[in-house]
């Protein structure tokens, strides 16, 4: 089965990720702040982030991509989503 998924700009991905984090932490974040160094989020939250990104952007994070460094900052998450989306569409 082939499913079509909407294309997202980097800005849309960034806004979505920021919104998700801010809803859970009840504070604003800079896109380059290390979420985990701040102590404001737990490792369990990191897994929630992975699952939320997978669901929202129709990606699968596995193997060597499943590492905390890919989720430390909003910028890193946007780059990961962009890459996995592009790989999936064959770009």
């Amino acid at each position, binding site marked *: 089965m082939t499913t079509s998924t909407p294309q997202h700009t980097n800005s849309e991905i960034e806004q979505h990720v920021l919104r998700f984090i801010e809803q859970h932490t009840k504070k604003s974040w800079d896109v380059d702040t290390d979420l985990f160094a701040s102590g404001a989020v737990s490792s369990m939250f990191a897994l929630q982030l*992975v699952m939320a990104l997978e669901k929202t952007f129709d990606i699968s994070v596995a193997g060597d991509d499943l*590492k905390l460094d890919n989720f430390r900052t909003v910028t890193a998450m946007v780059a990961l989503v962009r890459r996995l989306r592009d790989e999936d569409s064959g770009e």
Partner: protein
Amino acid sequence: MSEQAITRLGVVGAGTMGTALATLAVGRGLPVVLVDVDDAVLDRARDNVAQQLRLAQLMGRLPRTARAGELVTTTSVDALADADAVIEAVTELPEVKAKVLAEVSAAVRPGTLLVTNTSAIPVDEQADWTARPEELVGIHFMNPPYLIRTVEVIHGPRTGQAARDRTDALLAVLDCEGVVVGDGPGFVINRILQRMINEAARIVEEGRATPEAVDAVFQGCLGHRTGPLATADLIGLDNVVDSLRVLRERTGDLGYEPCDLLVAKVAAGDHGRKTGRGFYEHGEAQS
């Protein structure tokens, strides 16, 4: 018998610790038979193992690309017959552990390593509940064991050399670091930690400090990563109360008598992270 490879692990009890131990083992490529009396608990455990594997890989604590060991879930202890080692991780109630250890030691082959993951019951007391006391060893894994490598290893006075060697082999496969300590109620960690949690809860009960304040001083002043009450929520308040009672009965020390606030929270079903609420609100129940 010399040290032998551990190629198949049995885990009995699919609660918080049993499930997390299964995660650790399959994440290290070891096939696991996970036994519980409740099919619904086993179904939930399968989902939780899959999620915990991802968490451990995300944190870099389990290999990301290695093939995971097969996980078999069952309600039959007979399925443990082919295991090289079996870890019991059932409720911290002596009568429950006695029944389970008797059943397991009857089901496994002689020479199979039996491990109790007890929080506080002395290993030698539990050895009486097995068919072959020399095969029983204590390994006190921390929660969650797939993130915390260091464990307490307890050799009872009757633990045989073969079991000690097999314990080393098991810890090697699981990539755990064992610290050998003496047998006795609560061993090292829980003799101290459970008392600390009880006093922390008593301070909250007396209205002298909030849970946040208690934990904040342990974190800020002593540099603890989490305070005693956040730790209690992670352990599970039901387990804390059970462990305190074991310690109270075996030491005669009234300081281990679980305080009213802990007992009340357990009676209300507020067991910590596993039920979504303990000293803190955790949102959804977490495995």
